[in-house]
């Protein structure tokens, strides 16, 4: 019956002491690691990048409320997925929460299955996002080895520009451009431009740069 415990902890944030205790009990009984906080501020204080899992938060709380917690979390280095658990939700709040990427929006009277399912999904998503973040981080470490000039050349290359064009754009010699390309493919251990482009894409680089 017990769902396979996902890795990670469920961080429960609720100002209602009794509900906090009961939902902690349930999740613990269901096999999850649980950590309970009676305010958003206390949770954010203890939030650390290495913490994995998801957040199960009440919407209406004195001090920072649920939506504000979500916002703060998204901006943090550890954007854990959030499941909202509200005593009484209204449509505008729900829409806003979901648009900001909440995993789910449940009421406190939702059936256990829905709650556990949402928690499972959130944990899975958290885990996935975390591994993605780790992979990206590893990729980005490889790019970190490049010099600023090599990054510039790289950006031009993945945008499909010829060496001559790159040399013109950067105001350098075409041969120097070739030298930078050779160095960066060696550093990044790629064989072809296609492979290089795929790697850049995975690392999520230059997403916001506009084509010149």
């Amino acid at each position, binding site marked *: 019956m017990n769902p396979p415990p996902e890795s990670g902890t469920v961080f429960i944030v609720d100002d209602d002491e*009794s509900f906090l205790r009961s939902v902690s009990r349930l999740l613990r009984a269901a096999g999850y690691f649980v950590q309970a906080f009676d305010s958003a501020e206390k949770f954010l204080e203890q939030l650390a990048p290495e913490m994995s899992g998801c957040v199960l938060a009440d919407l209406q709380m004195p001090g920072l409320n649920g939506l504000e917690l979500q916002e703060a979390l998204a901006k943090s280095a550890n954007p854990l997925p959030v499941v909202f658990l509200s005593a009484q939700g209204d449509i505008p709040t729900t829409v806003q929460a979901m648009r900001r990427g909440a995993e789910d929006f449940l009421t406190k*009277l939702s059936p256990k299955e829905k709650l556990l399912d949402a928690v499972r999904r959130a944990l899975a998503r958290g885990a996935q996002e975390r591994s993605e973040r780790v992979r990206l981080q590893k990729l980005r470490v490889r790019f970190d080895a490049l010099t600023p000039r090599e990054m510039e050349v790289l950006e031009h290359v993945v945008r499909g520009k010829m060496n001559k064009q790159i040399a013109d754009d950067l105001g350098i010699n075409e041969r120097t451009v070739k030298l930078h390309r050779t160095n960066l493919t060696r550093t990044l251990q790629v064989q072809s431009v296609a492979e290089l482009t795929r790697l850049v894409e995975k690392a999520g680089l230059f997403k916001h740069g506009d084509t010149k």
Partner: protein
Amino acid sequence: MKRKVRTIDCACLNFTKQFFSLTVRQPAEVLFAVLALFFFDKMDCFAQSATDRENSSPKHVLMLFNEGKDVPGNIILEQAVRTEMQKNSTNRIEFLAEYLDASHFSDKEHFRLFEDYLGKKYAGQNLDLIMSFPSRDYRLAGELPNALFSDVPVVFIAVNEMDVPQAVGKFGVTGIVQRFDIRGTLGLIMRLQPDTRRVVVIGGVSDVDRATLGRIAEASQALEGIKFEFWTNRPVAELPEAVKSLPEGTVVLLSTVLNDVSGQTFYMAQLAQMLAPSASVPVYVLGGWALGDGALGGSVVDSEDLGARAGQLALRVLGGANPKTLPIEVATKGTPMVDWRALQRWRIKESRVPANGVIRYRPETLWDEHRNLILFSLAVFLAQAVTIGGLLRQRNRRRKAEAEILNQRTELAHVTRVSTMGQLTSALAHELNQPLGAILRNTEAAEILLQNEKPDLEEIRAILADIHKDDQRAGNVIERMRSLLKRRSLELKSFDLNELLAETITLAQSDATSRQVNLILQMPAVPPTVRGDRVHLQQVLLNLILNGMDAMADAAKFQRQLTVRAEMAKDGNVEIAVSDCGSGISPDKLKHLFEPFFTTKANGMGMGLAISQTIIEAHGGKIRGENNATRGAVFKFTLPADQK
């Protein structure tokens, strides 16, 4: 002319006297009666003046009395005659009267002088009629007028038992001889006092008196077993003493005493006055005029009735009828008449008086005596009653209206409470969903725990305890809601104000949380006890709190602070202030705050503060709204602290 006026005045006076003594006691009524008489009299005079012109000669009637002026029977008789004649005559009638006074001057010389006097006095006077009132003999009806005024017709009225001398008839005289109703009187005695065994008859020794006594003796034959005693040989002066000790079963019957044994004259009325009050037994009389001074009654000669009949007879003669053709009438009819006061004195039931009997001197009932006053009073009373009734009706209506207003106010209070609840719905749903959610999660957890082979019983026990607590919590929320929603009138009870404040803040807390308003409660260290209706006061508080939160909707988040502060005022009242940090109230709106339907909110009903004011004032408190010195508005209301 002079004489005429005097006579009429005299008549009026007489009548007035009588009217006064018999029926009228209220001075106002006397005045009224006199005025009325005066008025009628004048009318009469005018009427007569009018007839004078048509019928220029007034009729002159000379009345001749055998006795003096003060014989009660005669006074009534004379008056009755005059009244009857004046009433029914088309002519003006001048009455002239002369009194022989035979009781005091019985000698022949006196009679001669009287005759002489009359002859000289009325010589050359045009007399139209002589009315004679004989008593001891009929000279005044026959010989005298025949000698002096032979061509003047004569009508006489005699009240006695003497036979009319044949001679009288030949003078062209007619008249009425009224006999005493002796049989009737004896019958009345037996009827009123069936136990009577003895009748003491008091009479005189003159011819007239003897005639009367003879008639009484004759009538007594009809009554068997009753002893009749005729006291004629005692001077009347001794009688008052003698009648004081008469034994029970005796009655006294007064006959005529024109002369007693000592030669003195006593009228029946005088006798009655002397004897009846002190007599140990009832005294009966034969003449109506003798009633009223203590006598019980008798089948009496009714002087007024007799006078009326005599008047009619006189008018016929005046009208031209020949007295010779009119037979002398001998009347024996009496009227059973009793004095009500004597009936009371002798404890004789009124029901014993015969149906045709007359009861005199019954104290007039209030109605008889004060008819006008009663009618007037009744009218005043009625008017008053109507006014009072009207006022009562008005008051009833006003009360109904007030009750209606109160009802509507309760209704309105209910509506605003419902709308307050509406505003609080999400907050309350939140309130309710917290414990319900906790219960749900706890049971789910317990289910899972129970699936283990070795369930953690300790944990399950804790779960059950929590469920129990949350269940109570949910119940409380519902109770709060229910009491707030209940349609109810004011119920005053003493309660702890701090408790109410805390509870109300709890109720508003979740709403405040969702609106990101910081609710601050400041309470006195010593909880004040307040007497009032908890639910209504909570409504006021909630209303002010929700208003305050509304006022801060546009304020920066850090400024959203609502303070509820209660403190003891110097005057012993408790003051509760709900202060917000919104934009405050513009001065022109301040004075309209508590007016019904005044609102600054887009969806406001404008009833919240009006209802709040009604509630606070019903508690004997005051509510006001003003701007804070720094920021926002504050609403303060006072409640009298419970002194106990």
